[in-house]
């Protein structure tokens, strides 16, 4: 539940291939070898007398001496990694930073990760993770409350109820567990977890708290915070953001959700399952604007219309005041285009789900002449930071929500891995069109690549034909066995060469089904080849299988993918 729908696809989607090392900017690689040392040092300095409290900080105290020594030589480009404290410093221990750190250790880099708050970042503490816990509850509630559905199974369930605190605890327990897992996985590998707010002091130099360290390469992975438009007063009780909502401190009778993207949709699923009524406020002319139009139309029919939800589209919430003095939450709506006042709503609570804003203030970007754009740090397709003059800042990368390319936890992690690949001598450009996205409503929505309008626009420009294949969950045995035949899978592809341009799924476990398509896009697998692959029967994956088989491609299957005949 981490993303606003600002999916800015990089226009140059290079096919993934092992390209020769790009010499221009990537620093000459020198593979560090002191990985083990990193873990040992902790104990070595553990006894040093210091006024600092944590053992973690002891190291830093003592390392400072090294820093001053290193600083003098750090001016020389291509200095051996020995002259730096670390091969890689990552600012921000969210999912992006974590993914980068793990991969860096695997590649033999001496790695530090700086975290000013709690390990895990938004996703683990205030995003995807706790929201999945709430959605797991809402899914079950929905099922138990659906008498018709239960009856169709021959099941009898008497009135289903829930305990709010129990639900909230499930979410916070899950977040704690995942946070510990994340922390432990980094500790086990010997990543130094440094506590404090990190800032860039200069090239290859980072400050956190009162400490200064140097690193051969630096990754900014500071993530984002909920975006609250001006005029909206958040009090954390009746006017809330996803940060508060995930604690589930109350279940209001009537809650307005500002924004109908992933975050808003998922929360509408949670709240309506727990008995709230929901009003969506969407600035664009239709709900769920980021999705493929056909999918959002169907999703609206299933996720919005039959539920206790109404909506206002084409309006901004220009002013929201929290409930106080016995008055309800007041929401003033203005027309999104004319700015004329349109309506006033009085509700019990309002959830602001208008997307997320990059968390890049105080990062010391001015020290390296980097100018943010609406808070986002400009980067090229290799996540290299671009400064105010349009030049690349050497050895500095930015991944995840802070660069705004694709605000998804797994995208941040993939970007981090891509950066580590580059700094360890293997050029790598991440194909964002192969990164799947999912919305965990009931049923789920998932997608990868282009939507139909995007694909048609691209086809027009580049002069190729686009075809659409569709399959329904109604025809899938497993879905019918689950009494969940509602759903659609849709593939947009090139009939001439069998390239998959986009896949969109709405239906049971759609989020788990998308990866066959996203992997195919990432690996450049063509439909005529993948359609020969076999799927277990009966499984939901046959929905995607049917999709591949329904496509009409002119090119024959490639020789390598032809079934290899093996005597059994």
């Amino acid at each position, binding site marked *: 539940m981490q993303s606003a729908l600002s999916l800015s696809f990089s226009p140059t989607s290079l096919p993934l291939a092992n390209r020769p090392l790009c010499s221009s900017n990537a620093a000459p690689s020198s593979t560090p070898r002191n990985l083990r040392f990193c873990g040992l040092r902790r104990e070595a300095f553990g006894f040093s007398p210091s006024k600092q409290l944590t053992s973690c900080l002891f190291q830093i105290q003592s390392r400072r001496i090294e820093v001053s020594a290193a600083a003098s030589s750090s001016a020389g480009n291509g200095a051996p990694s020995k002259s730096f404290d670390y091969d890689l410093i990552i600012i921000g221990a969210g999912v992006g930073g974590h993914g980068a750190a793990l991969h860096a250790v695997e590649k033999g880099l001496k790695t530090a990760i700086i975290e000013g708050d709690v390990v895990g970042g938004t996703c683990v503490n205030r995003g995807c993770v706790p929201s999945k816990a709430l959605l797991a509850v809402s899914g079950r509630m929905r099922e138990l409350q659906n008498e018709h559905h239960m009856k169709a199974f021959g099941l009898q369930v008497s*009135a289903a109820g829930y305990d709010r605190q129990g639900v909230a605890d499930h979410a916070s327990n899950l977040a704690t567990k995942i946070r510990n897992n994340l922390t432990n996985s980094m500790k086990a590998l010997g990543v130094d977890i440094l506590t404090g707010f990190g800032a860039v002091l200069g090239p290859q130099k980072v400050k956190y708290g009162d400490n200064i360290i140097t690193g051969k390469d630096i990754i900014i992975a500071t993530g984002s915070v909920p975006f609250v438009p001006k005029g909206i007063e958040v009090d954390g009780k009746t006017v809330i953001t996803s940060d508060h909502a995930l604690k589930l401190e109350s279940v209001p009778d009537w809650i307005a959700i500002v924004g109908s993207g992933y975050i808003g949709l998922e929360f509408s699923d949670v709240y309506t399952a727990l008995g709230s009524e929901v009003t969506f406020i969407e600035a664009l002319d239709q709900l769920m604007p980021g999705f493929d139009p056909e999918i959002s139309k169907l999703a609206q*029919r299933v996720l919005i219309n039959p539920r*206790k939800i109404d909506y206002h589209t084409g309006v901004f919430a220009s002013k929201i005041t929290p409930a106080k003095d016995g*008055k309800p939450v007041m929401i003033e709506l203005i027309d999104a285009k004319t700015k004329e006042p349109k309506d006033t709503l009085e509700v019990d609570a309002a959830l602001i789900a208008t997307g997320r804003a990059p968390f890049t203030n105080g990062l010391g970007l001015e020290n390296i002449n980097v100018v943010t754009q609406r808070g986002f740090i400009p980067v090229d397709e290799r996540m290299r930071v671009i400064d105010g003059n349009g030049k690349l800042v050497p050895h500095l990368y930015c991944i995840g929500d802070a660069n705004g390319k694709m605000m998804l936890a797994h995208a941040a992690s993939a970007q981090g891995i891509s950066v580590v690949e580059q700094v360890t001598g293997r050029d790598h450009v991440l194909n964002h069109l192969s990164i799947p996205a999912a919305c965990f409503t009931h049923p789920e929505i998932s997608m990868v690549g282009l939507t139909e309008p995007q694909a048609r626009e691209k086809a027009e420009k580049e002069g190729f034909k686009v075809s659409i294949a569709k399959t329904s969950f109604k025809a899938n045995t497993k879905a019918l066995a689950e009494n969940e035949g509602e759903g659609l899978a849709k593939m947009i592809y090139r009939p001439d060469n069998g390239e998959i341009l986009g896949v969109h799924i709405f239906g049971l476990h759609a989020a788990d089904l998308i990866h066959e398509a996203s992997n195919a896009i990432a690996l450049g697998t063509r439909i005529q080849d993948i359609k020969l692959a076999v799927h277990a029967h009966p499984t939901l994956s046959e929905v995607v299988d049917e999709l591949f088989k329904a496509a009409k491609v002119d090119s024959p299957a490639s020789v390598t993918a032809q079934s290899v005949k093996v005597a059994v």
Partner: protein
Amino acid sequence: MSRLLQTPFLPSVSLPTKTRSSVTGFRVKPRIIPIQAKIREIFMPALSSTMTEGKIVSWVKSEGDKLNKGESVVVVESDKADMDVETFYDGYLAAIMVEEGGVAPVGSAIALLAETEDEIADAKAKASGGGGGDSQAPPTAAIEAPVAVDKRIAAPPVAVKAVAASAVHPASEGGKRIVASPYAKKLAKELKVELAGLVGSGPMGRIVAKDVEAVAAGGGVQAAVAVKEVVAAPGVELGSVVPFTTMQGAVSRNMVESLAVPTFRVGYTITTDALDALYKKIKSKGVTMTALLAKATALALAKHPVVNSSCRDGNSFVYNSSINVAVAVAIDGGLITPVLQNADKVDIYSLSRKWKELVDKARAKQLQPQEYNTGTFTLSNLGMFGVDRFDAILPPGTGAIMAVGASQPSVVATKDGRIGMKNQMQVNVTADHRVIYGADLAQFLQTLASIIEDPKDLTF
């Protein structure tokens, strides 16, 4: 508007339901159009198991277009999805009977398909002749009553207009703006309830779903019991002569008809301590007293099939194959009799759920005919009003009806000479003596009493 009566008696004429009380837009009733071989109807298809009506999203073809078998003709929105509907025959789309945006029940004709171009005109004539909506005179006498009922119900112009607002939402600018929750708005649209002027019972006077439901239930009944209210309601001209409405006429006919049935009554006093204790124990599982009584009655009926029989022609009678207990429910002065089908076979928990569902449906006026006219035995309980005994008139077409009074603490002398207090209720069965004799009823009541006094079988 299923079976709204102001007496606890059931008419034998089966009144087909009409699920919505007023008609706007393009809602189309099933029409009977004489079918000629060469002009076919295109029906509203059932696109899902739960679909009862469909909305025409768009006509892919227009009138006069040639259709080939298998071609998409119309896009229909069901409760679940938009679906293309194909034609099964070649021909010409002669007449569209439900326009885009219109709603039609499953199975009703939405267009006519002519086999040749020449027949398009014929088909059009039929469509306009057969169409015309609700005020159209019905083609057969058999459904005269329901249509008349429809008219009757549609007649009060604002059947569901609410009482003037007394509590006004602070933000509603003195009632100028309507503050209603999303679900309330949805329900209001569905039940055709006007929100303006409605008094909300939600926080700060907000209109919530139950306000709308209350108005819908009250308003619907209002139409049916208007005459009864004449007596008490102020503002009605006292001493004026009010002609029967069609529905009242039907009730009147039925009551007179019931005089042709030789009925007799047998009463019994049943101790309910054990039943009360059981109820207390399983109440939390959603079990209702109504369901318990219906269950007990059904179990007793199973042992005495003759009491569950019916005599219609005076020459023969039928042992009904299933035990369907109809239960009279008073809703705002009216009466609805939903039927618990196979009450002897369904377990008490399902029966309770079914009962809740039926009552909800009844309030929303969405009972289907088989949900109110398949009763083989009727229960009428006025105990909740403190009535200790009464007798009921037998609904024609059934064998017996049982009037249930309140269960009250009574002083009881036991055979061993002691005096104690027990909860007791009186039941009084009215039966058709052509087929059910005194001994039958007596034995039935004895069985019933033993079941209620030792209710362990109710929860098997």
